[in-house]
């Protein structure tokens, strides 16, 4: 589904990714772990096309398409979803309006008919319900006045409504209490654990991986993948730390 080959990327003039190679197949969940400043969030931003993140070398193919040639909104329509580490507040724009426009923009791009207001609300209600989010919150401006946990939960509601093929989840577990972590973990499994989908989980900690069991765990350090293993690798990292691993 996703092939990243020898990816180099700069933020400003600073090289952050330095030859990252990674391949995700449909049906797989990959976790990327690594110390602060390793380039984890940069990877998520580069893949989703954030301005200011410049690819200097390498290639990324997503379902046979050159991902890097697409604009951010085209990447979304192609099936890529970035769960933000810090979901953005957008005063004055309601969640419902935002999500309906987003979903219908994606459908239009793919040549599908738009959902009517009623059809959209049905999907939104289902997804909000499954993640324990009040519909009233969906009527409020995007993320404004939401707690850290509510913002992350909202990201998952968005993911459920948009129903992407590939989700890159950037520290979706940070800022969550134990119950919210379980809800979010269940959400990821329910929405994304399917034979035709894949997930790239970017995380600092093992604890989310108790709920969402990864097929592969990668260590990202100094802008490249330095080690790859199974779910056990995460436990090993939790026990020994990144320093030990590098030694």
């Amino acid at each position, binding site marked *: 589904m996703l092939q990243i080959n020898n990816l180099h990327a700069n933020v400003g003039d600073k090289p952050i990714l330095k030859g990252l190679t990674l391949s995700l197949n449909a049906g797989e969940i990959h976790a990327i772990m690594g110390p602060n400043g390793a380039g984890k969030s940069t990877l998520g931003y580069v893949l989703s096309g954030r301005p200011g993140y410049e690819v200097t070398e390498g290639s990324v193919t997503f379902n046979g398409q050159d991902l890097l040639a697409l604009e951010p909104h085209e990447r*979304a329509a192609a099936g890529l979803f970035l769960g933000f580490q810090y979901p953005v507040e957008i005063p004055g724009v309601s969640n419902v309006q935002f999500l309906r426009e987003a979903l219908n923009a994606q459908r239009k791009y793919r040549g599908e008919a738009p959902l009517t207001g009623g059809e959209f609300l049905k999907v939104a209600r289902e997804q909000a319900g499954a993640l324990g989010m009040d519909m009233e919150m969906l009527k409020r401006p995007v993320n404004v006045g939401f707690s850290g946990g509510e913002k992350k939960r909202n990201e998952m509601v*968005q993911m459920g409504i948009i129903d992407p093929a590939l989700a890159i989840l950037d520290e979706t577990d940070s800022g969550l209490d134990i119950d919210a972590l379980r809800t979010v973990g269940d959400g990821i499994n329910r929405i994304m654990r399917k034979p035709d989908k894949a997930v790239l989980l970017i995380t600092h900690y093992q604890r989310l991986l108790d709920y969402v069991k990864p097929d592969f765990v990668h260590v990202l350090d100094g802008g490249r993948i330095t080690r790859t293993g199974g779910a056990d690798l995460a436990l090993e990292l939790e026990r020994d730390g990144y320093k030990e691993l590098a030694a």
Partner: protein
Amino acid sequence: MTVLPTRHDEAWRYSDIDALARAWPLPAPESIIVPAGGTFARTIIQDSGTIHQLDIAIGKGATAAIHVLNTGGDYGRVELNVTLHEGADFKLGAVQIGGGTQTLEVITTVTHAEPGATSSQIVRSVLAGTATGTYLGKVAVARDAQQTDSVQSVKAMLLDRSATANAKPELEIYADDVKCAHGCAIGELDAMGLFYLQARGITPAEAKKLMLQAFVAGVFEGAADEAMLIEAALAKLGDLV
């Protein structure tokens, strides 16, 4: 005024004097007198490059609400000279949307002549290209006009670095028991917000439009033709993004 103003005249400081000269001499301002206890509402849609000058006297306990959508022509100006008598209320909600080389301005003088009157002015400008958007708003509170409550909220959004926003809320207060709030901000669309919307599949133009819609929303609240005003504003925003 019989002589063509120059940019040395404070009220015409940022104006398009060439365009003004073509319209000169201006007819006398429209005079509106709202009798005691009365209500008055007016929507001004400036979409063809014209100059609107209104003198409004609001009688005791009366209210006046003016909604402005200033979008059209090379030079569009809406000038309001408002006098409030005891306990009167004045509300202005104005949106200016300009691109290209347009010059758009809202100029107000709101005089609280007697006690207990309230006034509220909300002005939002969206400017692209090398357009200039100006708000000059003077609130004058007379010596006896105690318990005056006045608010000015002025914000401008620049879509291009080449656009210009001028904002000058001005207070002249001779009473000592008044509330006169004024806020003023000029900024750009939040880049992270735009990226967030695009990362969910919204095109760059629609993302900008959505954020600008939020920026001007609320200004037309209470207008009889609110829906029409919002639609006209959105159409103009759609041309700019």
